[in-house]
């Protein structure tokens, strides 16, 4: 492929070579994600679970008077499957750790409370000062077109800091997004957590030490809870993050039915997504965040879900393409709730959306680019959370519901 990238699509799935993680095509036009996915039906997953058990057993021995490992959790589906695996398959005593998103959906609060109750594990949660989190989110919205940067920066650093503070070297994560989406490594490489991957792929190339570039009057102490420990600390403590998806045949759809039936996990239907079990705990992940992702990258969460289904042979490419085009342009819901939390009105998102709009010129030429944003401020688009309001009464977790 020549240096001036021509964007091509994989012959099997919907991903293109401009995927932010990077994507390569082999000589037959099959993408690296689909290639590595084939390993899911070639590898001996019983043997790989055995390899995982040897690894975790060695830590169980070392950590006799302490927690065996740290498991980062949220109100999402993976957490149920990971904690189930860590406790019941690997027989470990984990410390569950959560970086609290300041605005949780009712479903998210219910799921996280359910998770904390049904598994015999202690739980730690960190909530960043909401005044600061609004400031960070406004900065990353304006400069990176994303809401999620703050939560990811927190959720990928808090467990590593606690590992250091409590002398618990092993952190167990669920899926390695790089492998699951674009096949960055073979499962057999058993790739581990690195701060380079965190900065480049989780945080879009800007980590908590560089966010000041966008907003000079940040006080470093304000976002100390996003700091990743230094190399010396990590080496001294022997901190290590491993991914279950290297050792188990990772299939979120299958895992969803399992955790739904066994642990009462609840999804959250939204306007823009095909499945309801991905990231229900964040009210904007499948709403405004997904809409902005679509504007920035030309694909959205529904694409990720459909690519997953194509590779697991649950859908053919043509039907997937049709469904994708249906959902891509759907309006984001729960906009009102998020605007309220941020202290602005829905219309205030207008200039941001304009700045990210691919047909920026046409919008301006139309002389009425505001009309589109008024479309988004419809009451029916904000019914989602009211449907789940019944949940609020029986389970309460500290964490603002919107």
């Amino acid at each position: 492929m020549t240096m001036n990238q021509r964007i091509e699509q994989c012959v099997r799935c919907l991903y293109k070579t401009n995927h932010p993680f990077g994507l390569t095509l082999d000589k037959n036009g099959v993408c690296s994600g689909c290639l590595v996915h084939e390993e899911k039906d070639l590898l001996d997953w019983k043997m790989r679970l055995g390899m995982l058990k040897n690894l975790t057993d060695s830590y169980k021995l070392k950590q006799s008077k302490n927690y065996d490992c740290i498991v980062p959790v949220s109100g999402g589906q993976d957490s149920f499957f990971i904690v189930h695996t860590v406790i019941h398959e690997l027989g470990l005593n984990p410390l569950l750790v959560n970086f609290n998103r300041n605005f949780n959906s009712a479903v998210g609060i219910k799921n996280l409370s359910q998770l904390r109750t049904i598994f015999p594990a202690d739980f730690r949660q960190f909530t960043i000062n909401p005044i600061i989190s609004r400031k960070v989110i406004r900065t990353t919205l304006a400069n990176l077109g994303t809401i999620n940067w703050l939560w990811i920066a927190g959720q990928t650093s808090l467990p590593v800091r606690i590992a250091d503070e409590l002398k618990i070297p092993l952190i167990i994560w669920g899926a390695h997004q790089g492998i699951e989406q674009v096949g960055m490594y073979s499962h057999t490489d058993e790739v581990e957590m690195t701060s380079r991957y965190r900065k480049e792929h989780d945080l879009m190339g800007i980590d908590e030490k560089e966010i000041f570039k966008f907003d000079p009057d940040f006080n470093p102490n304000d976002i100390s809870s996003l700091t990743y420990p230094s190399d010396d600390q990590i080496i001294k403590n022997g901190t290590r993050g491993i991914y279950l998806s290297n050792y188990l045949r990772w299939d979120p759809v299958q895992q969803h039915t399992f955790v739904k039936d066994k642990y009462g996990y609840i999804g959250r239907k939204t306007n823009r997504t095909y499945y309801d079990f991905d990231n229900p705990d964040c009210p904007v992940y499948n709403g405004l965040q997904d809409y902005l992702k679509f504007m920035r990258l030309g694909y959205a969460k529904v694409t990720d879900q459909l690519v997953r289904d194509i590779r697991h042979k649950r859908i053919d490419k043509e039907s997937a393409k049709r469904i994708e085009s249906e959902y891509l342009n759907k309006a984001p819901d729960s906009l009102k709730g998020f605007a309220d939390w941020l202290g602005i009105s829905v219309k205030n998102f207008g200039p941001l959306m304009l700045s990210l709009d691919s047909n920026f010129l046409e919008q301006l030429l139309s002389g009425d680019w505001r009309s589109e944003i008024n479309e988004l401020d419809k009451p029916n688009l904000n019914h989602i959370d009211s449907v789940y309001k019944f949940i609020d009464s029986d389970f309460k977790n500290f964490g603002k519901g919107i």
Partner: protein
Amino acid sequence: MKYCLNCLQPDTRPSTEFLDGICPACNFVNNSQVWDLQVRTETLKKIVKEFTNKVNGPYDSILGISGGKDSTRLAIWARDFLGLNPLLVSVTYPPQQLTKQGADNLNNLTEMGFDVYTTSPSPIIWKKLMKKSFLENGNWAKSTELALFAGVPQIAIEMGIELILWGENPALQLGASETIGKTGWDGNQLRNMNTLSGMSTEWLTSIGFSEEYFIPYFYPSREEFEDNKIQIVFLGWAMRTWGLLENGVVASLNGLSSRNASAFESSDLIGLTSVDEDWVILNQMIKYYKYGFGRATDYVNEWIRKGKITRDEGVELVVKFDGVCSDKYILTFCEFISITKNKFWEIIYSHTNKDLFKIEQGTRPVRKFEVGVDFE
């Protein structure tokens, strides 16, 4: 049972010695003067300065909170008056035990602009310990209290933050003399609170989990305190207005939600104490049957000492509200630790002070003594 001559504190409370008829709390209040407050505030500022000078991290102190009236008041005072930048640490209840107001009050405190770090022991183990300590000594909170007190110093040691801010010295308000430290502000004797002492590892692991499952319940040792130079400081001691009502007023003006139950159901006279959890109400009822005084007495004693009400007016309030606990709380508690109502009352009867109360099956114990009047 003898009452304090000044207030309505009976001498039945464990480890409280009266000094010629006056309880420790009244003695303390009597011999502390207002000018003394100026000295205390300056002393506190000096002590705090020692810690803030050598801080390298983002936080110069840790404040243990529940989101209730005391912690809301302390957070504001520590930040705005003492100029501190505390990390708020909360040991939170299992989701089913936390009340809606409890979650809202934690949100309320966070929204004022604080980083909040919560640690929550596993509800499965928490519930088993509650049941065991209720069945064995009639006080479900004996085990969970350990975690509530241990969480803050544990995190202080983990994060290398030496200064821990605490609200009140129990010795002052509840007359618990065993926690009198070197001076009024030193909280490092908190470890001697009677609820914290006397809880062996074997007692814990008897519920069927190995020792490593009880990490949140072990209060850091004296050596760990010294090695990490941990210092607990009582702020209430140096605050001009500190008390149940004063804190309630300030906290409410700053957004605190109150308990949605009348004092006839909760004996919580102003509906602002331990709002984040309801079963403390039945624990206060059990305290009443054990020692002859409950939460209403605590409220009343403070107001008598501050001259807000007379001793006789106090008697009227105690007679009406002490030991009150609505059945709805008992029902949810029995359901939570899965015991029958009869089993609940069987335990209550076994721990009731037979000298002070008459017991008849199927009814609540009846007071034999007259409030405020010594009784053999």
